[in-house]
C-alpha cells in the first residue's frame, strides 16, 4: 500500500484520479475499515495536513455570504468553534470520544455518510452546501441531495469533499441538536435530531427539522416543517408534531435499537430540540 501526501487539494485530486487509492483525512473510520479488511486500498492519499482544507472562516461564495469549513477541520474544532451555529457544535460534541474528535474530521463524518452521523442532521437543517473537488474542477451539491443510501453519496470516484459552506442566513437562525444513545460517552446515536428556525412576533418561520438513524439517509422532515411554518409557538405540542414526524421517518430494528422505540424517541427528541431552539430564539442565552 502506497502512502501519498499531496501538498495541495489539486494534487490530491490528480492522485485520486490516477490511482486506485482512497482519501485519508482523520482516519478514525478508514483505519477501522482497514483493520477489519472491509477495504484494502492500493494507496492512501493523506489530505489531513493540508492547511487550505482546515479551519472555519467567513467567505463569499457564488450563493452569497457563507461560513466556510475546510473538510479536514477536526470534529473537536467544530465542537468548540464560537463561529458555528449551536446545533452543529452540539452534533460535533456528540461524536465518538475526545480521542476520536481530536483525529476525526467533519469531512470524514459527511463522506462516510452513516445514517447516524451526528453532524449530518445539523448540516441539513442549516442548508449546508458541499464543495466537491475533482481533477476537472469543483462543483457544489446541496446537503439535501448529497446522501443516497447508508454510507452512499453522490461523491464520484475522483471527487474529494473540499469545503462545507453554511449560508450566513442559516447562522442567524436559532438551532439545537439532540441525540440518544446507550450511554453518554462514545455512544452511536439510536436517533438524533436537529432543528433550526426563526421566531418573529411569536410565530415560527424558516423552520428546518432533520433526523438521523431513522431512515437509510439523514433526512429533513418536510411535512412537519410545513405544519409548523408560520404557526404561533404556543400551538406546538408533542401531540401536534407526532403524526407529521412519524410520517416522515422509516426506522428499522437493528443491533442498537428497535423501530418502535425509535419512533417514540424521534418525536420526543424533535420536540426537545424545538423547545431548546425556541428558548434560545426568545432571548434566553446567546442569540443563536
Amino acid at each position, binding site marked *: 500500500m502506497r502512502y501519498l501526501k499531496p501538498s495541495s487539494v489539486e494534487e490530491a485530486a490528480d492522485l485520486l484520479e490516477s490511482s486506485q487509492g482512497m482519501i485519508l483525512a482523520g482516519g478514525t473510520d478508514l*483505519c477501522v475499515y482497514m*483493520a477489519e479488511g472491509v477495504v484494502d486500498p492500493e494507496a492512501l492519499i493523506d489530505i489531513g495536513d493540508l492547511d487550505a482544507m482546515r479551519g472555519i472562516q467567513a467567505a463569499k461564495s457564488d450563493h452569497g455570504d457563507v461560513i466556510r469549513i475546510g473538510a479536514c477541520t477536526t470534529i473537536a474544532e467544530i465542537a468548540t468553534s464560537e463561529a458555528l451555529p449551536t446545533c452543529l457544535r452540539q452534533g460535533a460534541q456528540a461524536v*465518538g470520544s*475526545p480521542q*476520536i474528535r481530536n483525529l476525526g474530521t467533519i469531512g470524514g463524518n459527511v463522506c462516510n455518510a452513516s445514517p447516524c452521523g451526528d453532524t449530518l442532521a445539523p448540516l441539513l437543517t442549516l442548508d449546508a452546501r458541499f464543495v466537491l473537488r475533482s481533477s476537472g474542477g469543483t462543483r457544489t451539491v446541496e446537503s439535501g441531495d448529497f446522501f443516497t443510501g447508508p454510507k452512499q453519496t453522490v461523491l464520484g470516484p475522483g471527487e474529494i469533499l473540499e469545503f462545507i459552506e453554511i449560508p450566513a442566513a442559516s447562522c442567524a437562525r436559532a438551532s439545537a441538536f439532540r441525540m440518544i444513545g446507550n450511554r453518554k*460517552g462514545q455512544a452511536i446515536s439510536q436517533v438524533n435530531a436537529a432543528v433550526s428556525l426563526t421566531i418573529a412576533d411569536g410565530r415560527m418561520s424558516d423552520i428546518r427539522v432533520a433526523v438521523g438513524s431513522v431512515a437509510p439517509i439523514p433526512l429533513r422532515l418536510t411535512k412537519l416543517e410545513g405544519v409548523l411554518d408560520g404557526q404561533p409557538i404556543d400551538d406546538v405540542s408533542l401531540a401536534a408534531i407526532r403524526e407529521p414526524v412519524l410520517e416522515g421517518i422509516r426506522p428499522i430494528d437493528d443491533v442498537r435499537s428497535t423501530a418502535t422505540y425509535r419512533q417514540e424517541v424521534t418525536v420526543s427528541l424533535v420536540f426537545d430540540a424545538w423547545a431548546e431552539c425556541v428558548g434560545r430564539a426568545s432571548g434566553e442565552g446567546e442569540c443563536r
Partner: protein
Amino acid sequence: MMIRFHCNGKPVQVDVEPNARVIDLLREDLGLTGTKEGCGRGECGACTILLDGKPVNACLLLVGKIVDREIVTIEGIAGEDGSLHPIQEAFLDTGAVQCGFCTPGMVLSAKALLDENGTPAVEAVEEALSGNLCRCTGYGKIVEGVLEASRRLTEGQDRGGG
C-alpha cells in the same frame, strides 16, 4: 521509509512503513509497551497517547501522520529520575488502579485535561475520560484520582509561585 518525529521529548528517527499503526511502532519498534492495545477499533482508549498535547487513539493513527510532530506516551510523563508523575501518585493513593490495563490511557487523558484546565469540575473529568473504558471497574476512584491530582498540582503551583 525514514520517519522523524519527537517522542517523549526526544527526537526519533526510524525506518518504518508510513501506513503502519502508531501503536505497533511504539510497542514493536520502540519497545514502549506501556501503551496498550485493547479493541484496536478506537473504542476502548487503552492505546491513548498525546499528539501535540491532545489525546488520540494510537490504534487509529498511522505513522505517516506523526511526521515532524510530538507524541507523549505513558513512559514520557515520569520525572527524569524515574519519579512518578503527580497524576500517577494520585491514582495510587486513591486506589484508582485495579488490573491496570486501562491506566496508561486514563492517566494520559487526565494529563491532557489538567494541562488545559487545572481545576476541572467532576463533569469535566467524566467527559475527559469518556473515551477510556475500565472494565474492573473503578470509574469512581479514577475520577477521584484525577481530582486529587488536580488539587496536588494546583497546590504545587501555589507554592512554586509564592
